[in-house]
């Protein structure tokens, strides 16, 4: 049990768990920090389907848009994407868990929105000076 133990085994284990926890928290912090740093920069939402970028949408403060992306084959279905106030999100989908809808609207590069059943991923990229290099994610 988790209590001050004298034996080495449990000490090692607690240390390992704490190290993993710390590393994860640090990674999370760095990720969020990096995402918030680029807050003012221009953003582009890149929509990937089956690993291919199918659409790039500049996220400008004023734009509002709603459109639907259909997927076919063994992952058939639809996702309705919504853009508003410089944010992008999935407003409706016919996937079973609807986690992509629950992920809400994003405007930072910290987390991509993914609809795993439809193999659809929305990722935010900071538009910097060298967009060709930025696009190389493979």
């Amino acid at each position, binding site marked *: *049990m*988790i209590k001050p133990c004298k034996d080495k*085994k*449990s000490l090692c*284990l607690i240390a390992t*768990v704490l190290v*993993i*926890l710390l*590393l*994860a*928290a640090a*990674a*999370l912090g760095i*990720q969020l920090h990096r995402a918030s740093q680029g807050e003012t920069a221009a953003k582009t939402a890149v929509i*990937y389907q*089956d*690993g*291919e970028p199918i659409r790039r949408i500049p996220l400008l403060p004023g734009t509002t848009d709603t459109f639907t992306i259909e997927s076919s084959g*063994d*992952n058939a279905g639809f996702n309705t994407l919504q853009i508003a106030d410089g944010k992008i999100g999935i407003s409706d989908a016919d996937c*079973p*868990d609807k*986690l992509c809808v*629950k*992920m*809400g609207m994003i405007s930072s590069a*910290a*987390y*991509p929105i*993914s609809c*795993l*059943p439809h*193999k659809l*991923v929305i*990722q935010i990229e900071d538009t910097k000076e060298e967009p060709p290099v930025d696009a190389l*994610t*493979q």
Partner: protein
Amino acid sequence: MTPLPNKDPKKVNIKKLTLLAVYTTIALTIFTAESFLPPLAPLPGIKLGLSNIVTLWLLMHTKARDALLVLLMRILLASFFAGQMVSLLYSLAGGLLCFAVMALLFWLLGDKYIVFVSIFGALAHNLGQIAIAIFVTELPSMLAYLPVLAISGILTGTFTGLCAFYLKRHLPPKTAWPL
């Protein structure tokens, strides 16, 4: 002269078969009940993984082989019931990696450290799912979920591990594994 039926090593142990079937049912029930709970966080892969209690339980009471059998049957039946073949891939990758890590750690550490076995199992499970997510979406950026999934794995793994630990403490072994 033919050997007596009950001395035949290939004879199916009916009692054990029934018991494993019951445990599969329990795991499946827990799994189904858990799927009705609202997701803990709006990120894919974050869940309590309560049916892992059954796997931990079986590791403590019987051979790893039996625990693996129950786990595989549970995963297969669960995705048949849910009717999603996509989730089968995720469940299998996560479940098998989790099981491999848990079986190894349990063999090394034993009953006393079941909480840690569970934590590392949960971590392995989440790692396996990210690997499949990268494989399916072909986007390495799925790794962005790794820190969150690691933290959630430690928390949920602790929870299920504690469940198994206290279950073991309060349920007499004769009831749990009456063979």
